[in-house]
């Protein structure tokens, strides 16, 4: 078919591009760098579609590694192949590697199937393959590139060993690795894009973050510098803390004092957040008062003896200190809420959440953590941005995640340990700086010191951590599997850490234990953050893990807090929990998104867990988390976030029911929802895309291809009630979307001639769908576009051609989908919902059931076998091929004329009744249309 078409259209135009060199014995072979074929320019190392022998099958995809012209003028290309997952499904199965649908595997190694020489004419089109490897040699693709990509790849398939390689060696097959990755100019392109994005966000965020943002805008290395600066900041903060503690001792809990204290802080902190602080003073004070109260409560619960008051003061001071940064955070959050939601922001929020959760856990020791948090604040922002950036870049690279996440958690713990060690070492310095207030302050100083340490020493720590991480990995899986257990383990660990902390801090007394443990947690978080920063800059892989970790930890902490309350059954603790949840809620109030994200990440985590570990347990985790989350919800449902939280609870319930995969979807979709809601509509598509990336990531990490598609649909905020039907979930009701053209693949693939055969096959496989009520003037391509836009499915569509008896109002099309599941899903979506295209009738779809397809062709009536009737006409049989003898206008004096007239009569009658039928149908439709035309018109 394709070749036939090529012939039909004449020879495609062709011209050589840049010459490269000559080869061969007699220098008769001319190599080229590029050429233009059929109007498309191809260059070396481009990816192309190549004609498949089986023309109906999907075309091969390969990378041009050599282009040359032989002495006989034949044009040759050498291509290194990409494998579709379907092509190496045997090995994938064997190696239990999960590949997403649009993922390719680059051939590598040595052996048959690595590369082939082909005639240049075998090229059918250009293929956009994007390398999403997180390898730092790989210029990361931009979001847009990812969206436009036909395929992505980051792994290779060794044709010799028949194994999947996750990393690219210096040479992949015969190809230097730099040609494997995205082109450099792409990288340059993406750089500014990312930068500009960051800047956009920056401008939206607040002046407070300008510094860090600028740092972010620059290269990762510079981020390190910024981290250092942060470290300095933290030092400053520490001093401030001390002062604050002093002031607080005077001020105690009065808000006015707190305000004054804030004012006092403003000059310093205010440089970053002054305007915000002004605006938010009220809130700050309120939060301060709350905190103070909680601090008091904490103090009471702790029953701290000598140092309680100073501790509380120190705590308050710390809190105050924390507040400005928190304010910054909150303000930024609010700003963010106003602005379109961005991932970075949400991440920041996550950080904030962490902070809040820390507060929750720490209630007693929260002061310390708060300090840490405050100090980390700027960092977190930067971290968030970094993460965001990396998310974008690495969005596709999740495969390696599970293990990494595992590592990350471990690393976190390790980092905790390390931090503690460092703390112990550096206690002198930290305590020296802070230790004015009291022992409590000292403990807080510990925290800060730890934070500082983490910041300053995080680099050296890293290495050690990494190594430790790798070593510690063995333990983790079990923890993840059993969250509860892990929680307990955490506790144990915390206690251990507490022990250490107590030893080092020397402040923590019996009652404080829990608090100190939370402290440890806070430290852990800090360590995470700091680690995250460093890792972000240095290790691409880590940032993701970091993102997830904080969430997990938060959850863990929540669950911990719950456990603590239960286990220890201390009323105080319970109260603490409540208050903590309150603080959480505040955090949420600013960014309910955080929770979502948390969940999303949880879901991701669980999904990841699914991959490697047992599948059922993640549910357990999630449930637990949900419970813990649900608890606070019930307590505080007044604030805005309440809604979201409710949703969360819903989702949690869904999670309970659904299989893990669905959980992922749901949560992710919730994310997208939130982002949509925040964005207020107009630019809906963009956030989707981002979330999609995320979603894709998580799916890629473990899920089948079919689920990937679901992600791309956005679910409405309110309308989503069914969790089982992804399409329904993802519909946005009432909103009008444009049908966009489906990304064109090689144009020669549209081979219409064999549609009938394909249709029969598809019909037998249940992939054939009959769409009715289309605009009859739609073309097949338009139907394909519609299906693409609405369902994000590729398909082959064929409009049923009109005939004299077909309805002039109701167009029909036969659509072949890729699989029966997809077809069923589309049909179900059409049955459950009402899809209106261009304000016409609702589209009706059903799995085509064409019984007659295999049945015999029914006989054609009306052509009497003439030889039986009239011997004169037997000759027509002989020359049936000679049409003239048998084709004629009948003369009016023949029998045939009479009979023919009867037929004409019948035809006229048939015409009449068809017209009648169509008219009646149209009338009936119009009757109905009249009922809702108003609305349609209004919407239009």
């Amino acid at each position, binding site marked *: 078919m394709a070749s036939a078409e090529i012939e039909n259209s004449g020879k495609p135009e062709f011209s050589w591009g840049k010459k490269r060199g000559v080869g061969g014995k007699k220098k008769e072979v001319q190599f080229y760098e590029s050429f233009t074929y059929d109007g498309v320019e191809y260059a070396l190392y481009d990816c192309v579609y190549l004609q498949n022998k089986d023309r109906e099958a999907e075309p091969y995809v390969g990378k041009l590694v050599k282009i040359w012209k032989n002495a006989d003028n034949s044009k040759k290309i050498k291509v290194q192949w990409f494998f579709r997952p379907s092509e190496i499904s045997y090995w994938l199965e064997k190696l239990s590697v999960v590949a997403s649908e649009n993922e390719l595997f680059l051939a590598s190694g040595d052996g048959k199937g690595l590369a082939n020489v082909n005639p240049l004419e075998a090229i059918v089109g250009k293929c956009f393959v994007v390398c999403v490897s997180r390898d730092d040699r790989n210029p990361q693709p931009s979001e847009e590139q990812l969206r436009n990509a036909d395929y992505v790849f980051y792994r290779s398939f060794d044709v010799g060993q028949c194994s999947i390689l996750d990393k690219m060696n210096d040479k992949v097959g015969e190809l230097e690795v730099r040609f494997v990755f995205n082109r450099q100019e792409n990288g340059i392109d993406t750089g500014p894009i990312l930068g500009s994005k960051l800047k956009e966000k920056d401008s939206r965020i607040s002046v407070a973050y300008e510094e860090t943002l600028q740092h972010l805008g620059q290269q990762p290395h510079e981020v390190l510098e910024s981290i250092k600066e942060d470290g300095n900041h933290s030092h400053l903060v520490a001093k401030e803390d001390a002062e604050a503690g002093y002031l607080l001792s005077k001020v105690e809990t009065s808000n006015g004092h707190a305000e004054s204290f804030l004012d006092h802080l403003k000059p310093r902190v205010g440089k970053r957040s002054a305007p915000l602080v002004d605006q938010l003073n009220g809130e700050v004070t309120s939060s301060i008062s709350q905190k103070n109260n909680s601090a008091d409560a904490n103090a009471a619960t702790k029953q701290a003896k000598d140092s309680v008051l100073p501790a509380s003061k120190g705590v308050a001071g710390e809190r105050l200190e924390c507040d400005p940064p928190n304010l910054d955070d909150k303000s930024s959050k609010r700003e963010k809420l106003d602005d379109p939601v961005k991932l970075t922001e949400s991440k920041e929020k996550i950080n904030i959440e962490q902070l809040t959760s820390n507060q929750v856990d720490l209630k007693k020791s929260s002061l310390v953590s708060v300090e840490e948090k405050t100090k980390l604040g700027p960092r977190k922002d930067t971290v968030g941005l970094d993460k965001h950036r990396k998310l974008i870049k690495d969005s596709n690279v999740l495969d390696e995640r599970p293990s990494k996440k595992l590592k990350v958690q471990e690393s976190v713990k390790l980092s905790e340990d390390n931090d503690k060690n460092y703390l112990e070492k550096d206690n002198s310095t930290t305590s020296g700086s802070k230790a004015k207030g009291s022992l409590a302050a000292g403990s807080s100083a510990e925290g800060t010191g730890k934070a500082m340490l983490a910041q300053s020493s995080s680099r050296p720590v890293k290495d050690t951590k990494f190594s430790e991480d790798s070593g510690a990995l063995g333990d983790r899986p079990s923890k993840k599997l059993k969250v509860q257990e892990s929680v307990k383990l955490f506790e144990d660990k915390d206690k251990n850490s507490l022990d250490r902390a107590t030893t080092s801090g020397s402040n923590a007394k019996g009652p404080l234990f829990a608090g100190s443990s939370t402290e440890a947690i806070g430290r852990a978080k800090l360590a995470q953050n700091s680690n995250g920063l460093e890792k972000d800059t240095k290790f691409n892989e880590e940032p993701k893990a970091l993102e997830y970790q904080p969430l997990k930890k938060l959850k863990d902490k929540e669950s911990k807090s719950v456990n603590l309350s239960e286990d220890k059954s201390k009323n105080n603790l319970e109260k603490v929990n409540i208050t903590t949840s309150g603080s959480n809620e505040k955090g949420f109030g600013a960014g309910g998104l955080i929770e979502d994200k948390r969940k999303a990440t949880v879901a991701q985590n669980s999904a990841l867990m699914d991959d490697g570990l047992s599948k059922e347990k993640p549910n357990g985790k999630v449930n637990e988390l949900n419970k813990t989350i649900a608890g606070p919800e019930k307590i505080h449902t007044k604030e805005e976030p309440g809604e979201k939280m409710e949703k969360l609870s819903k989702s949690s319930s869904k999670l309970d029911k659904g299989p893990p995969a669905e959980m992922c979807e749901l949560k992710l979709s919730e994310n997208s929802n939130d982002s949509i809601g925040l964005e207020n509509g107009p630019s809906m598509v963009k956030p989707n895309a981002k979330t999609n990336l995320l979603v894709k990531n998580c799916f890629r990490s473990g899920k089948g291809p079919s689920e990937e598609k679901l992600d791309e649909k956005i679910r409405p905020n309110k309308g989503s009630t069914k969790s089982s039907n992804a399409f329904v979930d993802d519909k*946005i*009701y*009432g*909103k009008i*979307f*444009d*049908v966009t053209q489906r990304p064109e693949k090689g144009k020669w693939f549209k081979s219409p001639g064999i549609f009938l055969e394909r249709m029969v096959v598809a019909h037998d496989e249940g992939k054939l769908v*009959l769409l009715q*009520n289309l605009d*009859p*003037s739609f*073309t097949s391509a*338009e139907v394909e576009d519609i299906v693409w*836009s609405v369902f994000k499915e590729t398909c082959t569509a*064929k409009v049923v*051609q*009109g*005939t*004299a*008896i077909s309805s002039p109002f109701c167009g029909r099309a*036969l659509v072949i989908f890729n699989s029966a599941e997809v077809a069923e899903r589309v049909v179900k979506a059409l049955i459950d*919902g*009402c*899809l*209106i295209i261009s304000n016409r009738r*609702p589209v009706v779809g059903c799995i085509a059931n*064409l019984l007659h397809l295999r049945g015999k*062709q*029914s006989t054609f*009536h*009306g052509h*009497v076998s003439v030889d039986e*009737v*009239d011997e004169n*006409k037997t000759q027509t049989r002989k020359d049936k*091929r*000679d*049409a*003239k003898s*048998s*084709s*004629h*206008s*009948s003369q009016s004096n023949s029998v*045939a*004329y*009479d009979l*023919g*007239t*009867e*037929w004409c009569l*019948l035809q006229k*009658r*048939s015409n009449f009744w068809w017209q009648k039928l169509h008219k009646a*149908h149209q009338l*009936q*439709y119009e009757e*109905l*249309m009249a009922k*809702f035309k108003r609305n349609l018109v209004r919407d239009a």
Partner: protein
Amino acid sequence: MAASAEEYAAFEERVRRTVYMDNLSPQVTENVLKAALDQFVNVVNVQFIPNYINPSLPRAALVEMETPNQASAIITEMADSPFMVLGMPRPVRACAAEVEMFDSRPKKPGRKITYKWLDPEDPDFEVARKMEVLTGKHAAETEFLLNHQLKEEENLANQQLETLKAHYKKYELIDGVLSDNTAKKLADRYRTRLSDA
């Protein structure tokens, strides 16, 4: 997109010089149709319309002429007298082609397709639901009418076959009577001359 507008204009011109023909026998091929119409016009192209949904229907084809005038001439010619191709007596029917009949047609330029999912709470949703039901009903009605038409055709064909057979028998009888001298004998008997009869 300007190119596509031109393309579409060219396509519309092609539609105008194309004739839709149906009631074609399944044995009719492109060559047969070309040859049959050759006596009137020059056929540029013949495209059969595949009937995916109901192949039991008689075939239909799009016959492209050289000019729109030729196309309209053919349509009137075939309306005037029953035109039979490759078999009798069922004539071929011709009418002007319409855009929707073409398989490979360019997209209508400038058209923007939009879609939306109706909100289940929207009152229109119910209406749309009804329309969907209606669509099913109409499809059934269409199917029924189609079967009815096929039946009618079969009836007519059978009836005509009967008639023809009766005619045939009559002729056979006459022929037999003439050939086996029965006629002559009868003529003698009635004293008439055979040539007068």
